[in-house]
């Protein structure tokens, strides 16, 4: 393009307020979010106030779905199991990810290759991960774990059929799938910390533990906040691994709120009550994230 028209275009672009440029860039993503997240969320809330069964809308019922939901003792138990799954997974995944990130930084190029390998489970579909682990944990001669145990003369352990061991097993599989994602965020976070600070700390004679407590951890909190938020949402809403591994059993010992939503909405086909569960899950997610922001949000970069 040349001549007065081109000049005019460039001039207009130059004088266009930066806000409009930003809005133009954000608009497509915003449209997608509104169409895929916001509108369905509003519809979900609307549906939670109606009696909908097997795609038949039987009308407005106010908060009846919520009243019935909390009248069922299973709901509170499911919330409890969701929190156990969420915080149990976080308690293992986050420290593991911090250690992995520190190690990867130390290893340099080899660490990056290791991280790529560790990311493979994250790239796999959760339901595939679940089926894979179901085969690994099969308590018969075909199962990998059973084969390993037999080398030590031990009988197979049916981890997924034991009401006490099923939840820890599901947590372990969930962590196996996700901790590398946390590690990659934290590795990037570690890269943002100025090396000068560590040199100064060395001059001051700080131990490794003191360096971690006084430099690494405070400056890593923005990344930790991201990791905690993303993993909390991910774990609290996890359902595919549970469907694939235990179907909420045995004896409902892994029936989390996410699984209860799946069972109510997609198996029992009570879509009104299913949406009520989704609203409750949304509110709990919101509370948890608000808690993290309050706890860690003000610490970054101090």
């Amino acid at each position, binding site marked *: 393009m040349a001549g007065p028209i081109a000049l005019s275009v460039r001039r207009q672009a130059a004088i266009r307020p930066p806000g409009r440029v930003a809005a133009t860039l954000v608009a497509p993503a915003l449209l997608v979010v509104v169409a895929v997240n916001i509108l369905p969320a509003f519809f979900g809330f609307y549906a939670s106030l109606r009696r909908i069964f097997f795609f*038949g809308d039987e009308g407005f019922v106010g908060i009846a779905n919520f009243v019935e939901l909390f009248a*069922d003792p299973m709901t509170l138990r499911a919330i409890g199991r969701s929190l156990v799954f969420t915080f149990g997974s976080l308690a293992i995944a986050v420290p593991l990810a911090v250690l992995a990130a520190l190690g990867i930084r130390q290893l340099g190029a080899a660490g990056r290759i290791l991280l790529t390998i560790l990311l493979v489970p994250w790239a796999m579909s959760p339901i595939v991960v679940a089926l894979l682990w179901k085969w690994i944990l099969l308590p018969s001669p075909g199962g990998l774990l059973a084969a390993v145990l037999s080398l030590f003369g031990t009988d197979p352990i049916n981890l997924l059929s034991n*009401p006490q061991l099923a939840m820890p097993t599901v947590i372990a599989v969930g962590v196996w799938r996700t901790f590398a994602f946390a590690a990659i965020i934290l590795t990037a976070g570690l890269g943002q910390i100025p090396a000068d600070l560590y040199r100064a700390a060395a001059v001051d004679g700080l131990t490794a533990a003191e360096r971690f407590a006084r430099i690494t951890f405070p400056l890593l909190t923005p990344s930790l906040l991201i990791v905690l938020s993303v993993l909390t949402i991910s774990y609290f809403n996890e359902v595919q691994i549970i469907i694939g591994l235990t179907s909420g059993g045995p*004896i409902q010992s892994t029936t989390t709120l996410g699984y209860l939503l799946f069972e109510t909405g997609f198996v029992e086909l009570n879509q009104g009550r299913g949406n009520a569960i989704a609203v409750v899950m949304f509110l709990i997610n919101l509370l948890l994230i608000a808690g993290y922001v309050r706890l860690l949000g003000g610490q970054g970069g101090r």
Partner: protein
Amino acid sequence: MTASSMRTSRRAVLAAAAAAAVAAPFVNRSALGQAPSGAVRVWTFMSANGQSPRERVFRSLIEAFQARHPGVTVTVESQPFQELETRFVAAVAQRRAPDLVWLRDTFLSLVVDRNALADLDQELSPEFRRDALPDMFEVFVRKSVFNGKRVSLPLWPSPAQAIFYRKDALGEIGLEAPPLTWPAFIDAAARMTRGPRFGLGLPTSDNSVSALINIMTGFGPSIFDAATGRLDLTGPQALEAADTVRQLVARNAVSRTLLNAMGDDIQDQFAAGRFAMAQAFAPRFQQFQQIAAGYNARDLAISAWPSFGDRPPAVLLGPYWTIGMSPNSANKHTAAAFLESIFSREASLKWAQDASLVPDRRSVMSDPWFTRPEASVAAAFHRLLVGPGAMVFPQRIPDITRIFTVLNTALQRIIGSDDAPRTILADAKSTLGW
């Protein structure tokens, strides 16, 4: 064209359309002499390229139909079997439903209540209604008629959830077939538990079958309340069924850790030799033979469920598959013709010969093929089907979308906990709000 001629023309067209609309229900396609043509979309759990016996037979029937009617294309759109009914109802509402759909009999009433099924009596040919319908198994055919409207045709009459057993394992304890009363059955199952093998495998985490209901069928059809279709979950029959499970566990005939096994898990573990007997979906008999790894496939056999007291051996005919038609189908004529072809005498014989299924057409059982040894499986199914203990689920079962999961949770507690059966069943009843 003048304004007056346009009015005349429009009036003539409207009159013709009105006459056609009034006459349509009384003029069947046979009278019109229409040849099937166009596309027919079918939703089923089977894959168009699958290799199971049923899938191969289905593919051959499609190919034969298309060969007879070169202008027809039948497209199979495979769907997850547990979502067929919900997806279909949603698709009908959005007017994008397939012409034909596979549905479970237990979900028929829900789909009917959503007005999502066409009246097949309006679409099937008079010849088919005259010759084929009376030739099918009455107990199944009757269940597809709601308020005089025939909403589907039942396919593959079979005892549904039956007991599969290994003759070699039975032979180890000196028996040829499982005992058909519960006390003797429990004893036999316990004696067959050896090493890593258990006497009996039951699915305990499935949302479309319940071993507890199958055990209760040993009391006969009276387990379902005639008026409500409900089971009396705290009544003596349910308690006896729960106690039976407890005895199986106490005698180590059923594994105490068998707490979240779906039907497919039982199938896989049975194939690996983990069970001497197992609850299984009868139409999968050939699949069980094909995947047999822990035993000789020729040792696989099928039995009715044991009963209580002097009742005949129990055979619960369901859940089973039926085929319905969308009320919005744009090609009902061809869809009906294809549907009829699935239930022809030739097709029935093929289902039996190639997939070991009981023929849908009863008259086919007189074919000489059924006297041959390879017909023994279909013949065994047929004996169960016509036995005195055969029964179906009621046409309407309340909470059909919940009952199996609730009862399987109860079954898991009966197997894996020390809670009193009475408490467990009361909890199940309370969960269902019955």
